[in-house]
């Protein structure tokens, strides 16, 4: 009879649901996803896919991977990236070559869409997991990503 069958199935599915939530309840100590932020500031590590701000990593010789191709500048939908570049003589080959002077990033205008990072052909810019981005003056939000005196890492352009 489907009347009692319905009752049986109803109770069974309710108990299934309760066992699922019961397991969550018992594992809540280990599995809690809440971060008690200011307390665990020293140990808190953001997950890898978190989009904090755009950075340009440099190696120990103060070399970066940006060729100044401006693809990120074109890809950015709201003009957060500005690249100041000129043609200089490359000291190794002696030829004139496009080089970046300053890679300017306006964090205040950035919507963290990530199009610049997808567009970069040499993986020169990456997401950082830093999330404490507040500053006292708006001007501090404009950042120069390449460090002073840095140059292109050899072998990136090949």
């Amino acid at each position, binding site marked *: 009879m489907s009347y009692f069958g319905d009752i049986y199935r109803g109770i069974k599915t*309710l108990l299934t*649901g309760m066992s699922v939530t019961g397991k969550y309840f018992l594992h*809540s100590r280990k*599995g809690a996803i*809440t971060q008690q932020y200011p307390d665990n500031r020293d140990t808190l590590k953001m997950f890898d896919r978190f989009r904090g701000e755009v950075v340009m990593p440099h190696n120990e010789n103060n070399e970066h991977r940006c060729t100044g191709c401006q693809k990120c500048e074109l890809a950015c939908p709201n003009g957060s990236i500005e690249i100041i570049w000129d043609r200089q003589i490359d000291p190794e080959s002696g030829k004139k070559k496009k080089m970046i002077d300053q890679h300017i990033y306006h964090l205040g205008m950035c919507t963290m869409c990530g199009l610049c990072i997808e567009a970069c052909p040499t993986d020169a810019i990456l997401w950082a997991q830093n999330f404490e981005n507040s500053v006292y003056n708006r001007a501090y939000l404009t950042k120069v990503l390449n460090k002073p005196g840095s140059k292109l890492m050899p072998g990136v352009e090949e």
Partner: protein
Amino acid sequence: MNISLSITKNIHNWLFSIMPEGVASITEMVLIAVVYLAIFAVAGLYLVLLERRVAAWFQLRIGPNRVGYQGLLQTMADALKLVSKELTGTIKADKFLYNLAPYFVIVTSLMALALFPFTQEFQAFDINIGIFFLIAISSIGVIGILLGGWASNNKFAMIGAMRSGVQTISYELSVGLSLITMVLISGSLQLSEIVEVQKNGWLIVQGHVPAVIAFMIYMIAGTAETNRAPFDLVEAESELGAGFHTEYSGMKFAYFFLAEFINMFIIAAIATTIFFGGWLSPFGITESIPILGLFWFLGKTLVLIFLMMWFRWTFPRLRVDQLLTLEWKYLLPLNLLNIVLMALIVWLNLTIQF
């Protein structure tokens, strides 16, 4: 009034020695009322905290843990904040009924508390129609909700109150019938006597199959009685704002909120008394220490409250038609069958006695 643990007996004798009898008994009643009010206002607040912590654990969160050790003072602070807040109201509200409604709800839930035998002699009001009185009192609370929803002059509050009326009137029937099933086996309506009967085994063991069915029906209907999820369509946030208490603020809102949690305690306490032996310890292991009855009673009640919280954080909310289908097509016929079954078992002496 038969509170007669030794300390209360001393106070009783002292009161009657310094005053004429009439004045003394009135003073005693007032004292007991104040003590119950204080205990259960605080207990209600801690139930709110428990609910929040349990909800957090079910959702893999931490819950309030900042105010006091592990958040123990959180709800106290909330209550203080609510007391200090302005009582706003709508201009077109029916002022008299609007102000009356919260007191209906809180007073009925506090009245019901007087009946519970917390331990052997710790019971404020041992009336011989105990269960009948409880059922009667708990259906008055819905009047407060209806009044609040009606007098607020707000369509959401109105819809919430009407839903509450539908729900409580329907499920009142199931609560009553499942308790009647147990009255068949206990043979008494008086709560202290029902506990006495269970010295030969808790009623859920004595009555085995029909008792378990009655307990399940009682828990479902009891959850619906207190307007808690999955039967919280009275205050369905996504549809009605806050339901019948949309227009209430400050302490009047807190009364509704507190009453909800005290009602939850009442439902669990009735189940403890009727099904799980009240203050009796399992197999009589602490029978020699009567004060531990309080511990057993509160322990069993808290387990049942936890069960209701478990329901709340597992099941999705029902629609109105599903709610009524559940009651009138499933719970009610099963309940009537269950009464016949229980009557047969009691008649043929098939109960399990230790």
